[in-house]
């Protein structure tokens, strides 16, 4: 087959909803797009552990502490599943991590915002995980097999994440005046960054169209964002909290909520590294990686010694 035929055969498979697997032929650009997207997603999970990790030591009850630990642990797991999926495309975890730490690779900008009160842990679960799930459910049907399978596992595990966040918000919203204030304040700060999580507007999204054709993505950024707004408004009503958007209004004709303009200037600035916590987040990951180097090295050295000893013993046994 010529390159062109390969390409057609590949697209036919994608169109027929046949999954692409690691050893199958795939266009170079498809491979690159997947590596970029999957690793960005993995980095987001791992960096995403940090803002919530801030509150493990201050979780206000034993129950909350267990839940928070388990949730953040899941995020480590999700990062790990995703790095593994990316590794099937012929790149190592080490290389991927290097891209993150050198600033070459991006991660979700939402994690460059600070967690200032306990209510932020509620808001992250409710809004940030809520927004992430919209995207992730779509990705369980991505055309690349290992990615889709990782997403199925992730979605299953994620299902408690949003609920625990909403439960925190609900408890605070029903609590004392100070707690209610915390809840509203957290919603005020996390609402717009959550909408930004879906990425630039469709018209400004560099990779969207090709990704849709390859069925890596199945819904556009704007579609997902609208879907998120539509379901979240009612959830805020139940909490008795006000979404900080004066333009938010039900549009009978469209059958959707209209909402105000996102501050794209802020969005691009946080992407570029000017968010409130970009530096802390990356510094924390770099420190963990560098401080851990001697540990990883020691484990490898020990494994090699053990292997050597085993070989020597079996050689001895054979000689005897």
């Amino acid at each position, binding site marked *: 087959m010529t390159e062109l035929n390969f390409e057609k055969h590949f697209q036919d498979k994608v169109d027929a909803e046949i999954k692409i697997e690691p050893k199958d032929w795939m266009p170079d650009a498809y491979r690159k797009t997947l590596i970029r997207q999957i690793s960005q997603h993995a980095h987001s999970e791992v960096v995403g552990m940090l803002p919530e990790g801030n509150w493990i030591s201050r979780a*206000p009850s*034993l129950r909350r502490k267990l839940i928070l630990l388990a949730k*953040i642990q899941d995020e*480590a797991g999700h990062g790990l599943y995703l790095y593994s999926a990316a590794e099937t495309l012929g790149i190592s975890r080490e290389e991927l991590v290097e891209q993150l730490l050198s600033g070459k690779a991006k991660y979700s900008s939402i994690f460059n915002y600070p967690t200032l009160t306990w209510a932020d842990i509620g808001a992250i679960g409710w809004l940030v995980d809520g927004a992430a799930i919209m995207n992730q459910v779509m990705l369980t049907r991505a055309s690349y097999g290992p990615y889709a399978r990782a997403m199925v596992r992730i979605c299953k595990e994620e299902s408690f994440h949003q609920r625990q966040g909403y439960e925190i918000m609900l408890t605070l919203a029903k*609590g004392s005046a100070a*707690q209610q204030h915390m809840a509203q304040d957290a919603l005020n700060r996390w609402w717009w960054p959550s909408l930004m999580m879906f990425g630039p507007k469709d018209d400004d999204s560099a990779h969207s169209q090709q990704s849709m054709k390859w069925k890596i993505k199945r819904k556009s950024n704007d579609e997902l964002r609208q879907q998120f707004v539509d379901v979240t408004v009612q959830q805020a009503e139940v909490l008795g909290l006000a979404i900080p958007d004066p333009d938010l209004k039900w549009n009978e004709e469209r059958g959707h909520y209209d909402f105000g303009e996102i501050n794209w200037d802020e969005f691009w600035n946080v992407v570029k590294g000017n968010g409130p916590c970009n530096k802390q987040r990356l510094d*924390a990951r770099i420190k963990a990686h560098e*401080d851990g180097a*001697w*540990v990883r090295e020691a484990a490898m050295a020990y494994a090699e010694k053990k292997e050597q000893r085993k070989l020597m013993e079996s050689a001895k046994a054979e000689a005897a």
Partner: protein
Amino acid sequence: MLYNYLLQLGDNALILGHRLGEWCGHAPELEIDMALTNIALDLTGQARSLYQHAAEIEGKGRTEDDIAYLRDAWEFKNVLLAEQPNGDFAHTIARQFFYDTFNFFLHRELVGSRDEWLAGFAAKSLKEITYHLRFSSEWVLRLGDGTDTSHEKMQAAVEELWMYTGELKIPSKTDQEMAANGVGPDLNLLKASFDEKVADVLQKANLQMPSTTWMQGGGKDGVHSEHLGFILADMQYLQRAYPGQEW
């Protein structure tokens, strides 16, 4: 008093679990991050069961959270070892290994406790602790017998933390009472098993037995190192700042 004994056990689990939780998001590798969090979850879960039961037998309507979040440092009965800072990974592993070793032999005895609840609790926890001990022993081997750097760090950690191991094996008043009633073991009888296991693992890891003989103590009587105050300031902040709220 059984109540005090449950708190002593629970405080160890809570405080060490708290320390391990500080690693979450910062461990040397993702897989290690998940492993340490699993141990933190086991320990925090154990503390929760112990406090729940303690509150129940106390019968004053207090909750597990009242016990964890509304006592001050002198009321905490955990050993000093549990509250020592994470340090580098070698320190965390040394602390864990000493604690797991003691905890393993302790719970193996508690399975036969005359107190039915405690026996049941110990049987369940022993499975978790057996795994913790396996994990920490293996890491002592890896670091002790890994590279020159890791060997040095592991040896230093063992040396530094050794002085906190004496307290594990010296019975407090509560320990003595419990042993007399057949609720808990005589700690003097665990000493040999502890020493033997530690010596065995250190030797396999090419590590020297620490030379320190002077031992720190006081934790079981509520006299702590400076670290505990900071742990509690962090841990109890919300419950103290906003008393009596649901979370």
